[in-house]
């Protein structure tokens, strides 16, 4: 049977095969592609800063940051002020946070029979949008990060506003998602500690435990993260073993028969990316405890994504304190882009996981561009013998409705997957 999965930033078709009343295989089909990589060919390198945010309406800012870093990596020596680096990290954090609120209240709640909580999603997302806009002019779709830094020259007034936006978003999280002082969550090491508080997350977790769905959605227990900044670490994890030496060169992308989206492997294996992956690689004690207990299941994915909200907000508060307003926002590169013939690449942690951009430039003109999105990692459409991460997670489930819960636990984004 075929099920059209809707409201995932577009649609996808899941083609289910059953054997002995269990899912035997799922073929994942994405239906549209905009050929952004081809659109970029022949264009001035800087134009990618305007085009690439338009890959995605919900994580376009990650595409901007990946683009600017990939272009900067084409220079032998380029100086970026610490202030510009912090500001870029902050706006990206804010994008991740708005995404996670939307995913939890728009996507997760209905999967467990609740009505969407539109306002609980929209209010904190709007605040995070304001925070991005106060630095970058608007959200979504700005191009404020340029090669050499950022265009904005923020002032003390902006810093105060940003502090308030962060605090207001924390308040919204505490009021609705988990009723606790978010300072505490950084100290938590056990899922049971979360259960001592009320809130919408606990309601969902209680429902999962009650229906004994806590181990649904297990895949290969292989995680990878390429984006590195002052919060996220780079590395991979297989079962409980962690490795830090990974390189973008080993990422391979290839077509599959059914879908317009390309598959992605590291070496020759599929890996999961996203909040659960980075929490495991970052050795977050709470998520590690949940993962030890329930594996790479829907419980671990849901908690990892939701708990990333307060952790990123807290970290953003610290980052904000580190901004030295006397530093330049932008340092003009010594070499004009029209003199650059080189290859570059960059990875950032986007809301759904590692996002990699690779570029070839000839005299400042793009000759080749390659975008590898997080959802390509998680939703790779492999074969029955060699299934992708989400395919493996749906094996042996009793019906397509439960499979949809597992599928959506990866925070599916159709537009990114095909781009």
């Amino acid at each position, binding site marked *: 049977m075929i099920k059209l999965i*809707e409201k995932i930033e577009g649609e996808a078709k899941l083609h289910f095969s059953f054997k002995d009343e269990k899912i035997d295989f799922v073929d994942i089909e994405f239906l549209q592609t905009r050929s952004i990589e081809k659109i970029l060919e022949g264009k001035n390198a800087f134009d990618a800063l305007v085009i690439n945010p338009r890959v995605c*309406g919900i994580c376009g800012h990650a595409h901007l940051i990946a683009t600017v870093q990939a272009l900067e990596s084409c220079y032998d020596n380029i100086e970026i002020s610490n202030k510009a680096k912090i500001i870029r990290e902050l706006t990206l954090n804010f994008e991740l946070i708005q995404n996670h609120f939307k995913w939890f209240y728009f996507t997760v709640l209905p999967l467990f029979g609740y009505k969407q909580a539109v306002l609980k999603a929209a209010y904190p997302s709007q605040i995070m949008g304001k925070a991005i806009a106060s630095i970058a002019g*608007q*959200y979504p779709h*700005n191009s*404020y990060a*340029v090669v050499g830094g950022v265009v904005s020259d923020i002032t003390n007034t902006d810093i105060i506003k940003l502090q308030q936006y962060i605090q207001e978003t924390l308040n919204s999280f505490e009021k609705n998602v988990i009723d606790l002082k978010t300072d505490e969550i950084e100290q938590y090491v056990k899922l049971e500690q979360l259960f001592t508080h009320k809130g919408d997350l606990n309601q969902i977790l209680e429902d999962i435990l009650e229906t004994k769905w806590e181990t649904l959605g297990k895949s290969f227990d292989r995680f990878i993260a390429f984006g590195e900044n002052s919060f996220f670490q780079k590395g991979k994890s297989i079962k409980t073993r962690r490795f830090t030496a990974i390189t973008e060169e080993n990422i391979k992308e290839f077509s599959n028969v059914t879908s317009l989206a390309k598959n992605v492997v590291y070496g020759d294996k599929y890996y999961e990316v996203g909040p659960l992956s980075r929490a495991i690689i970052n050795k977050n004690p709470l998520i590690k405890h949940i993962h030890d207990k329930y594996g790479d299941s829907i419980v671990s994915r849901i908690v990892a994504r939701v708990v990333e909200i307060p952790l990123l907000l807290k970290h953003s508060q610290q980052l904000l304190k580190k901004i030295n307003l006397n530093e330049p926002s932008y340092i003009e590169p010594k070499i004009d882009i029209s003199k650059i013939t080189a290859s570059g690449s960059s990875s950032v942690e986007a809301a759904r996981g590692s996002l990699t951009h690779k570029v070839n430039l000839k005299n400042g003109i793009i000759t080749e561009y390659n975008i590898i999105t997080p959802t390509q990692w998680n939703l790779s459409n492999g074969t029955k013998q060699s299934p992708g991460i989400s395919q493996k997670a749906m094996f042996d489930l009793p019906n397509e409705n439960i499979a949809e819960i597992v599928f959506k636990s990866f925070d599916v984004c159709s537009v990114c997957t095909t781009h």
Partner: protein
Amino acid sequence: MKILWITGLACNGNTHSFLNYPYLEQFLDDFEFIYHPIIDSNYSLVDIVSKTISCDILLIEGSISPEITKADKKLVDIITDYSKVVHKIVTVGTCATFGGIFKESEYENISGLHFDEKNLVQSFLNLRYKTISISGCPVHPETLVNTFYAIKNGIELKLDEYLRPKEYFAYTVHNGCTRNEYFEYKIDNHNFGKKEGCMFYNHGCQAPFTHASCNKILWNEVNSKTRVGQPCMGCTEPDFPKANLYETKKNMGIPANLPLGVAKRTYLTLAGVTKAFHINRLEKDMFDD
């Protein structure tokens, strides 16, 4: 009032921009989506394409091509069917209005509903009388929602040649930009990363000839791109995106695109006059002693 929100070839940026409308609770009391790309609706996409469900406004996001299907039905057929039952059609964003950024993708005959960049598309000519275009990449949430309310309240909006409400598109992005003084006295933003300077002269800012009210109705209620120092990229216009977006195209040292309605000769006279000014206050950094 019931709205059908249907998506063609898009990034969903308009959907997310809409979610930034500050009075969403009130809006959702006043309007119902029979389908929306994110917000739950009484009908699924499969329901929407398998019958024609009663509604008042057909909203189209994303570029349109005869090759694009939604739930196995051609997008152009969905538009044709629903255009018969709705009072108004609203094209949301630059893709649905002019074709936009994805015009360069590999689908056949890709365009906006009525415009292929500046050219009129023949296929839906009979629907022009009921269409309003709200261009922008993405759409400004308040412009979109205010247009819905105008439709609901039976207000006849005055439209420009591209069917955009003059109330929002008779302005240029330049109106209200906090860098206007630097424009007036021709003080360029020599470098990014400054509060000071105008980006029109060297950095590709299209604000003086782009129709939109970004500096009147601020983004996310707080700011605009030009205010922070990012050049306006002309995202509401039929030819978005142009090429070499961070550079000002010039002929013999004069910007090739002048502020709307300004003749080249008058511009040159004015440029001569402004050169006579040396305004220390504007030539130094604003917070310096």
